[in-house]
């Protein structure tokens, strides 16, 4: 509890400090590449035969995903707190890469925990982390995926708490992480809201984002929460099918529980043991979800749906060929749902999809599974 209190205190102090905010804004602009464009995917929209589909191009950020918004913020905070050793967990490897990038730039030592199963399916990101000077620790316990990497990072943190900062990658874990990560990611929605008003002169009908831990989705939803006419859709991994262990959709198919220091929706069996998950996208392969999503769903502000592995792969191919943009498999779930949702709106309406990352990391696996 004491390290969490110290973190909360430091975060409260620095997040309201104009100098800290200015420093972070400068890093985000000149290093990470903010603001990112809001791009009208005209070909995809025509193909979907419905509302205009806009893509918030977080895939164009340095490192290839929205993760850098958070890692730069937290790495700066760690530096202010006097911590020199940074640990992080990673699923698809995007958060690990973004942590390695932020740490290299800010001269901090980075050590990344990654499930050995994920290391196999995201080899490219393992090389990238190492090339950026980070150390990668394979995690062999449990299901050898993201949740186990978080377990190991938590164990390391309690062991080395005096000099180590745990840089969590999503809106999960104990307070203050869900709040802090949301704040760092909410730059996505702030920009997107301003951009759509400038380009369309009105708010979109809906905002769609994929949900694993839920950081890119909370990030884009947050500035729209008070615009009650804008529907907010989170897309979870439907995996192979909706039987236990074959998907990663805690909001759609889980129930209330406690994991990793948070009370939220969790995939679990009748005895409270955490269920294994399955998804083609390592970044969505997590049995719980940020507690704010659970709250937003319970008050009816957000809706959660699923798309399967094969629907995500189809969307990957579709966006690549129709728009010349290869999405990561995670946001491909959101693209897939958005093309269906677009049909329910008129052509003069718009929806925004958070294109949270680029697909280069997934090409090898897609080529292996779908060689044609």
């Amino acid at each position, binding site marked *: 509890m004491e390290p969490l209190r110290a973190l909360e205190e430091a975060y409260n102090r620095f997040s309201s400090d104009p100098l800290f905010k200015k420093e972070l804004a400068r890093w985000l602009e000149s290093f990470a590449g903010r603001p990112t464009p809001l791009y009208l995917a005209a070909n995809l929209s025509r193909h979907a035969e419905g509302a205009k589909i806009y893509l918030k191009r977080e895939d164009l950020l340095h490192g290839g995903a929205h993760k850098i918004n958070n890692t730069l913020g937290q790495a700066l905070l760690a530096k202010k707190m006097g911590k020199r050793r940074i640990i992080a967990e990673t699923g698809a490897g995007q958060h690990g890469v973004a942590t390695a990038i932020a740490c290299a730039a800010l001269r901090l030592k980075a050590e990344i925990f990654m499930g050995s199963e994920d290391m196999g399916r995201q080899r490219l990101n393992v090389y990238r982390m190492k090339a950026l000077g980070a150390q990668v620790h394979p995690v062999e316990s449990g299901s050898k995926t993201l949740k186990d990497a978080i377990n190991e990072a938590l164990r390391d943190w309690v062991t080395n708490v005096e000099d180590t900062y745990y840089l969590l990658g999503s809106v999960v874990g104990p307070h203050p992480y869900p709040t802090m990560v949301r704040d760092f990611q909410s730059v996505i929605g702030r920009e997107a809201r301003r951009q759509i008003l400038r380009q369309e002169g009105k708010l979109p009908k809906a905002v769609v984002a994929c949900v694993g831990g839920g950081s890119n989705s909370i990030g884009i939803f947050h500035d729209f929460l008070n615009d009650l006419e804008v529907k907010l859709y989170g897309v979870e991994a439907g995996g192979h099918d909706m039987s236990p262990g074959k998907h990663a959709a805690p909001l759609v198919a889980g129930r209330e*529980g406690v994991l990793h220091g948070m009370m939220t929706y969790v995939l679990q069996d009748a005895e409270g*043991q955490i269920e294994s998950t399955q998804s083609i996208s390592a970044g969505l392969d997590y049995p719980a979800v940020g507690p704010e999503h659970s709250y937003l769903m319970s008050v009816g502000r957000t809706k959660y749906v699923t798309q399967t592995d094969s629907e995500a792969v189809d969307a990957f191919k579709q966006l690549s060929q129709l728009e010349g943009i290869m999405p990561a498999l995670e946001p491909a779930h959101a693209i897939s749902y958005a093309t269906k949702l677009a049909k329910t709106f008129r052509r003069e309406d718009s929806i925004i999809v958070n294109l949270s990352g680029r697909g280069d990391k997934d090409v090898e696996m897609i080529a292996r599974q779908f060689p044609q």
Partner: protein
Amino acid sequence: MGHDPDPKAFVANVTSLVEGGADILEVGIPFSDPVADGPVIQAAGTRALSAGATPQKIFDTIGELSLQFTVPVVILTYYNPILAMGIEKFMRNASDNGVNGIVVPDLPLEEGDRFRELALKHNIDSIYLAAPNTSAKRLVSIVDKSKGFLYLVSLYGVTGPRDALSSQALETVKRVKSLANGRIPVSAGFGISQPEHISSLLRAGADGAIVGSALVRTVAEHLNDPEEAPNHLKKTITALKQASKQRGC
């Protein structure tokens, strides 16, 4: 760990520990994601779960054991299995089967009011953990709200045997003992495996020492000849118990 590696071997192992002089039994109810535990206990939980262990089945075994022994039993588990059963039902079950106390490492004091109320109602001691970096202010409320004993985490880290006591261990014992001021016994755990660890801790003022992984490791070393485990466990616990009697030196 309850039902590690299976219910029958578990009962034989526990029996040998009681015969060897254990003063309190700490029985784990396995959880799939035990973040406070090191690899030894984690593996034991995995073995128990694959052998079909559930909280209910372990309660039933404890109920049978409590008919044979008078040693107090403390449960160690994580919050989610308790929530899944329902806190009230869990406490009633524990109480009906002779459980005396419960430790939940992922339920901080600050989130546990309802849990503590229901434990109290069913006469189960809620035992809280204090670590080397726990602030004085928080220690005071831990002392206030703990029942049975206070579980002192003797190091920064997770469970698991270490060769030497951590540098913080003895200092933490002294600090916590002076804050507890005789209001609650203080038992030290995490990383304790050797008789000399125990005598040092007790000399520093601890009221008890908690040994987990060192015993679980013995179980793990005898998975192929489980009938050998009780003898080894008994030898270990006897030596540890012996050390606890030498606190005067």
